[in-house]
């Protein structure tokens, strides 16, 4: 067991080191795709930490992401950047806790519907507030953070999410969530405080998405509600995580890489057809690979090495 873990950690470290070398290629386009992949890896992996075991489909990513972006945009002239990152983390956690408390005792459908419009609602309120009190529509975020630094920051965040996921997987909380995902009634009758466990875990993707929004704020320079709270982001995260497989820590990564590349190619050659791609991949997930690429890969591995445990 420990031998295997050691091997996995070594492998991960090598992959991480290689990924960290990307900016040295000196290719701006490759780096920007690298940033996108790193960003979605962080978002999709943290999304799957909650939604994988509980089967709740959260579309709240954009709401938290926008929250983080706005914390930075609103505070950049007054507070140091690193402090704003911490503030974004805290704001995301608090918002997630509140939303979780209000909605996680409801059935899955209501939760989906609630998160579906959340980003749009916050966008409307922020726009309205800005129009009435801000005096202008957008905010400027001017820093000297380069694309390279941004990329490394995201890579660090990804590492943190993986470590967090690995730790949760070994913790009582992680075990409790697997039980809840299997049968919530049994979980409650085994002494698990199901509501508390779900809210605690829902905080993870909330604060991570808020942090990512904060990290990426400098990239935009000029921020307005429509950019920060783009509902599409939530769907992209869901589909990448499910495409890769939400029940494994490394699953979402397998979805993020091909989907990002595909999305990139389609937006270049058929700029209007990203929607169609999104739709087709959704149906593909439901009908062909319900457990994602990771699930498929495991089935194949098992077929190659029968009972090779």
């Amino acid at each position, binding site marked *: 067991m420990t031998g295997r873990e050691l091997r996995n950690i070594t492998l991960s470290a090598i992959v991480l080191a290689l990924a960290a070398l990307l900016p040295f290629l000196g290719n701006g386009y490759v780096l920007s795709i690298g940033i996108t992949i790193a960003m979605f890896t962080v978002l999709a992996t943290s999304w799957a930490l909650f939604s994988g075991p509980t089967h709740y489909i959260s579309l709240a990513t954009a709401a938290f992401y926008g929250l983080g972006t706005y914390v930075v945009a609103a505070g950049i002239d007054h507070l140091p950047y690193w402090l704003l990152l911490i503030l974004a983390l805290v704001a995301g956690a608090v918002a997630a806790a509140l939303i979780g408390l209000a909605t996680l005792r409801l059935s899955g459908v209501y939760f989906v519907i609630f998160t579906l419009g959340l980003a749009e609602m916050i966008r409307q309120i922020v726009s309205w507030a800005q129009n009435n009190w801000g005096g202008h529509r957008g905010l400027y975020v001017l820093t000297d953070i380069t694309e390279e630094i941004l990329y490394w920051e995201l890579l660090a965040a990804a590492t943190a999410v993986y470590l967090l996921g690995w730790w949760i997987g070994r913790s*009582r909380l992680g075990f409790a969530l697997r039980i809840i995902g299997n049968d919530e*009634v*049994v979980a*409650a*009758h*085994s*002494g698990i*405080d199901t509501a508390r466990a779900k809210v605690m875990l829902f905080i993870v993707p909330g604060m991570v998405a808020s942090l990512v929004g904060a990290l990426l704020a400098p990239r935009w320079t000029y921020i307005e509600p429509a950019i920060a709270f783009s509902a599409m982001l939530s769907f992209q995260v869901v589909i990448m995580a499910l495409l890769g497989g939400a029940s494994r820590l490394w699953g979402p990564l397998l979805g993020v890489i091909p989907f990002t590349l595909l999305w990139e190619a389609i937006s270049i050659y058929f700029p209007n057809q990203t929607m169609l791609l999104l739709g087709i991949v959704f149906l593909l997930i439901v009908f062909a690979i319900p457990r994602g690429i990771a699930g498929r890969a495991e089935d194949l591995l098992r077929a190659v090495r029968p009972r090779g445990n």
Partner: protein
Amino acid sequence: MAKANTVLSVRGVSRRFGGLVAVDRMDFDVDEHQVMGLIGPNGSGKTTMMNLISGALPLTDGSIDLRGSKISGLSAQAINRRGVARTFQLVRLLPGLSVIENVMAGAVFGHRRRWGRAAEDYARQMLDRVGLDDAANEPIASLTYIDQKRLELARVLAGEPEILLLDEWLAGLNLTELETGIQLIKDLRAEGRTVILVEHVMDAIRSLCDVCIVMNSGKKIAEGTPAEVLADDEVIRAYLGDDDA
């Protein structure tokens, strides 16, 4: 008044669903090391009574105390943590988890909480206890029906509960399995565990229970040793219907 060795005491407990009174002012005590049978014809309110004790349903009226402290009104998880653990009428396992993890679920979050090595060791002990020790690494789907029941029992035992609620734990077993099942509960009894048994297999009730409560239409209609209550005229009428049709 409750005696010194009373573990669970049920006082004036009622539960209504709309106009229907499923459980009607039930009173009884369960003593330490006692195996109590809760029996009655279909629809008499036994399973509702179990759901009230385990916290799956809230009470409409009355109170339930565990060793003198009130547990009625608490959530299911809180009641489990205080030491009341149950099995389900239709066996409920965690299909995505391995056999040993199923048992650990009870050990990690139950009445006496363990974690890591200790939880796994204790879970193995419980598997051994129910005779499933060699199935620890099997997938859940490959278990036979009696083994699924054993596994559920092991999960419940793993939390070291003060009191065990077995809801038709023997139902659906074939004859050889039934013998195994009855033997298993006999062993629990010999260990001095406190058990409430909802059961339709009357031969099991006769050989396992110290006392029986008979319910009909939500009310307690008899209480005593199995032999006494099963010879009771009212009980026979409850089961077989009126004679003067």
